[in-house]
């Protein structure tokens, strides 16, 4: 598949007629061994809401088959929150009068040591988009600090060029998350009024660039609530399929954050219910049985605990969405408000209570 095929397939997914899906189509999708995109469309449709229980049964079986009964725990570390973008939904929006900061190497080391001491082996490093305050050199230095003591280092930063990804991979980055937020080009354009993030295609192709640069895994995501969540989820699956075809060895994970009340932004977007979120989790698991699926602390503990075993493979714990803040006072304000404040031990206990095993990495650099 080439880029134009991907764009066409995304357009096709966004135009999918979810309302026309009949219960028969949902049943067919559920009984299919290998699902087509139209089957995923059926599982995401309103008609499938009546099939959540059989979907959960199937998703649970597939999760067990592909991942066993384990949940990988990770924690994010926000390195910096300087940002030149104006994303209408984000706390890091340049216009937002936020306390801004970037951790110094010493502060990063101290944060990493604290996180490591909590038992984490998988760390996700985050920044806003600012080549001035958190450019590739800064990122490379941070990755080099993290790589020796963490089995898996992820990056959730602005889209980079292929050689930059190659540099970071060489420095020890294992995976890269670039969430498209929404795959709907017009909406994307509206909610990114200014800044480099406005470039939809540059962002869309970032995971492919990262894989081409040799990074082992990529994370895709949509911010649920921005637009039509069904079309966005289907388009994300198209994107995942494209990357899997391009790089059969790639570790691909979906992330499905719901839009949360965020300081400094107006909450004028749609609201996705927990029931709809569950439907999305189950549908993605059934469609892409081998892909990772990550659920953030935007969701409350009750919901996160109950979806253990139903498709989610990665949970964060001990999360701070402000800059630093693990080892002392934070150095900048937070990106969004969390709904699950539990530390690593509490989340581990919850995982064990549901018959699963918490693990801290499922991959170690050779």
């Amino acid at each position: 598949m080439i880029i134009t095929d991907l764009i066409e397939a995304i357009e096709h997914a966004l135009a999918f007629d979810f309302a026309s899906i009949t219960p028969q189509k949902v049943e067919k999708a559920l009984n299919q061994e290998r699902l087509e995109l139209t089957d995923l469309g059926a599982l995401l449709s309103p008609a499938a809401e009546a099939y959540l229980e059989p979907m959960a049964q199937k998703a649970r079986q597939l999760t067990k088959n592909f991942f066993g009964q384990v949940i990988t725990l990770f924690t994010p570390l926000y390195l910096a929150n300087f940002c030149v973008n104006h994303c209408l939904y984000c706390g890091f929006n340049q216009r937002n009068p936020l306390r801004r900061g970037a951790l110094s190497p010493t502060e990063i080391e101290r944060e990493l040591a604290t996180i490591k001491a909590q038992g984490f082996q998988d760390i996700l490093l985050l920044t806003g988009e600012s080549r001035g305050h958190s450019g590739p050199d800064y990122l490379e230095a941070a990755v080099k600090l993290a790589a020796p003591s963490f089995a898996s280092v992820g990056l959730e930063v602005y889209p980079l060029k292929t050689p930059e990804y190659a540099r970071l991979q060489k420095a020890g980055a294992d995976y890269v998350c670039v969430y498209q937020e929404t795959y709907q080009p017009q909406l994307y354009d509206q909610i990114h009024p200014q800044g480099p993030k406005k470039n939809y295609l540059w962002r869309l192709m970032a995971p492919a660039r990262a894989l081409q640069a040799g990074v082992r895994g990529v994370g895709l995501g949509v911010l649920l609530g921005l637009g039509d969540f069904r079309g966005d989820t289907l388009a994300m699956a198209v994107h995942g399929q494209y990357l899997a075809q391009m790089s059969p060895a790639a570790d691909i994970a979906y992330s499905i954050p719901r839009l949360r009340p965020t300081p400094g932004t107006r909450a004028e977007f749609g609201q996705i219910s927990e029931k709809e979120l569950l439907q999305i989790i189950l549908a993605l698991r059934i469609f892409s049985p081998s892909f990772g699926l990550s659920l953030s602390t935007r969701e409350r503990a009750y919901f996160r605990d109950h979806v253990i075993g139903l498709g989610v493979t990665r949970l964060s714990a001990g999360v701070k969405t402000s800059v630093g803040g693990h080892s002392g006072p934070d150095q900048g304000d937070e990106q969004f408000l969390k709904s699950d404040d539990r530390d690593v031990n509490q989340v581990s206990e919850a995982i064990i209570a549901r018959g699963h095993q918490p693990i801290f990495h499922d991959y170690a650099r050779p």
Partner: protein
Amino acid sequence: MTPVTWDPFFLGGRQFHSRLILGSGKYPLPQIREVVEAGSPDIVTLALRRVNALGQANILDYLPEGKTWLPNTSGAQTAQEALTLARLARELGCGDFIKIEVIVDAKYLLPDNERTLEAVKLLVADGFVALPYMTPDLVIARKMEQAGAAAIMPLGAPIGSNKGLTTRELIRLMIAELKVPVIVDAGLGRPSQACEALEMGACAVMVNTAVATAENPPAMARAFALAVRAGREAYLAGLGPVSEATASSPLTGFLKSEPDPTL
């Protein structure tokens, strides 16, 4: 009911309709025409052999016109030999389609996938429409696709064995993952097995021994044609679900036990 017509498929830029590819081996020459007419394939395979001048007969004289000839490279043990055979076939003026067969294993006649991949690269570089015959292996099939193979021809069972679609699970993966057509080749012994391959989404099947060793080869060729057609139509119609009992323990009841705070 409206009469059914084949939906076309494409190989090497050419359009085909019949999804039954027939082999021309193992027949007395006078019978071939009857078999091919009964099975009505668009593509017929041929082999290349040393010939004596005496009693030289041209097999093409015994075949109906208007078919696409698909010479194979049987006898080749290396990629280079496959290329030489392909070039010889091209000099015979029957086009650029080649079924690549590279076989070293003499006991089961299993294709050497590694050398076959090598042969795909050589033949594609030489302008052939390469259709590699292979032991089903998705990973190497992907490499063949990458190398420019026009279709992949995995075996259903060892060649000439009539054992059927014994590799179905591996072929299923290839159908799901590959972009080029998958043509099930070798081992199919019964029309029902050919039908199953098409139901699964295989683009076509290639049959020789099953027809040639039947009591009545032309009648068997026709039976295969009907089965292949039924399989294709079933695939297009979309198979209904196989019902499974659904367990009752509720995994989703938690949604109702506590109100959703986000609503």
